[in-house]
């Protein structure tokens, strides 16, 4: 797997998504709320004719959301979904050595320029949303 990641900022913290699963970065855009959906689902968005669900990454990680402005669109087995983030920091290689972290949503964490960056496990996040109660 490539070590290239998309680094994002959420509620003041830094996270990274492996670039292999990332389709694109887009504006948050107009969201249509879906009544009755899980709280982390902000709504659905029209992305060039496709309907994709958009999730608040902050809520998923148990953080207090600031004002998300962008979405990172990730591809999964059954379709794609957008993660709302405050900002996209950069796209680049992360150091290989990873710290173990005790979070179901992270595969690890690395120190970059003195900042701890959590590496997101996209599949784990999505499956926890897809099976309510997790």
């Amino acid at each position: 797997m490539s070590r290239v990641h998309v680094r994002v900022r959420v509620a003041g913290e830094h996270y990274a998504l492996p670039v292999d699963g990332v389709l694109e970065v887009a504006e948050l855009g107009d969201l249509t709320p879906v009544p009755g959906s899980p709280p982390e689902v902000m709504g659905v968005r029209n992305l060039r004719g496709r309907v994709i669900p958009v999730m608040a990454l902050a809520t998923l990680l148990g953080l207090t959301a600031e004002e998300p402005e962008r979405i990172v669109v990730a591809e999964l087995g059954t379709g794609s979904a957008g993660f709302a983030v405050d900002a996209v920091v950069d796209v680049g290689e992360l150091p290989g050595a990873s710290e173990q972290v005790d979070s179901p949503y992270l595969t690890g964490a690395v120190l970059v320029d003195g900042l701890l960056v959590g590496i997101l496990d996209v599949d784990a996040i999505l499956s926890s949303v897809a099976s309510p109660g997790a």
Partner: protein
Amino acid sequence: MSASDEEIHELVRQEAGDCLRRMESNLLALESGDGGAEEIDAILRDAHSVKGSAAMIGWQQATTLASGIEDRMEQAREQGALAADQVDPLLRAVDELGRALQVEPAAEAPKPAASPAPTIRVPAAKVDRMLDVVGETVLYHRRLEHALGDTLRDGRQASEELDMGEQLLDELQDSVIQMRTLPLRTITDSLPRAVRDLASQEGKEVELTIDGAETQLDRVILDGISETIVHVLRNAVAHGIEEAGERESAGKPQAGRVELRAGRRGRLVAIEVVDDGRGVSPELLARAEQEGSLVDILAETGFSTAEEVTDVAGRGVGLDAVKRHVESLGGGLELKSETGRGTEVTLLLPITLALMKVLLFERGGHPFGLPMTSVGRVVAVADTTSLGNRPSLELEGQVVPLSDLGQLIGAAAAPLPRNPPAIVIESPGRRLAVACDELLGEEEVVIKSLGAILSGMPGFLGAAILGDGRIALVLDPNHLLKAPTEAMAIGQSEETDGRMVARVLVVDDQFSARELQRSILETAGHRVEVARDGREALARIGEIADLDLVLTDVQMPEMDGFELLEAIRASEEHGSLPVVIVTTLGDDASRRRGVEAGADAYIVKEEFDQQALLETIERLAGR
């Protein structure tokens, strides 16, 4: 023969296959000395049956071969035994007849004046992809039109070009959708056999007839619906059709009858499964009247019309699954039943999943859609102050519960405006009025999945992207109706056009002959009843008040066609009923007997002509 009668050919082949197998085993029994007069008669009957069916659809070689076997068996009957050296040639003749039935249609039934259209095979996924792209293109066009908005007024040519583009896109979309539709027959061909097997497991005799197998449906719908239809058929066989003894004491023919009929009903396709079994109990019917819907009661687990639930089908659980399946496709399930007379289950399905006509409206600043098939009407709520605890509307003297869409689905929204519009959602037995802020109008939309995480969410059929780029959530009307509501019956009306429609009773002991005549008559718009011998026919004639005409075969068990004719003519009430004889007996003596007995027309199966039959019927029934 019309080209659409491949269905009949298949029926004839199936039926003849049974006859051939029986002939073979009876011949073997005769050869081994185990058989006698009974076997000879049986072979004779089977040969005669095959001859009749083959003659009727014009398969000359098979007719001749079957006739040859019949002649030799006639001789054997006269001599009281079949000579041992006759068995081998007869077995060979049976084989040859089997081959003739397989190859004949290709050799002898070419479509008139039309060589077969060339076909290509395309992986289904490619068509799916194409349909997706076409859908996107349609939306792109709408966005373009929307974006150009005001500038269009200045450029007439551009506006005309856009209109042209829209027309072309519509055609393109239609043709791609048609590429993805297949006839229902692709999943029904195996059903008659399946029903026969199910019935024999239950120790019953059940005959399945299929009508409307050419009805087109989206491949995606067909894929999933096959199992569901089998479920409904299983219910009919296991729970609907009674044991032979029970049927007999109820005055019904020993063999149960299940009909599968498919056809368009407006924008939907209706697949009806009708049995002539015991129906549901009067207690259940009474409960349904009180609580509103027989479907819902029967779909509750644990309900069965049979005393015990067999391993073939537990009715309750099954029907619940059937209901959920058709509803998930944006369709519905209807159920009618009459105690002692039978049950009719109707699956209503959209023709395609790709496109849906929806009524668009707004609540809380967001657009929503409801399938037009579920929308009964739209009303203006006269006084919003009546939206109290148990709000309702009065429509045509009936009370319809009224809900605010926002509250109903839990969407955040400001209070409704004064006199808001309300959409009346209808399903058999239920109505619900849903109030919103504003109606946006009717539009044909491409239904998209809500995506990976939300697609399983109840309450939504999907999402549609509107011309202005906004997303409208398309609501599942059945989910909205789940809220407990007042019982309500919705009447059904029968449509008629100006053409003459005759009610015809077809009497023939042979399944294929009956079905061939039925399909010809129904295609011409007539209403058809059937009976399998003279005795059953007489009973039916007594029951059907507006019968116009009887078409009858001659050679049948119990009571033959001539005896039936004589009985009709002797009857005070039905003495003048037109009777047409359709038979393989083309000899002068038989014709004379028919005319003497009072037949209005005499049609020989070998000379069978669809058009002549229809003209005869119109002439006689129109008198």
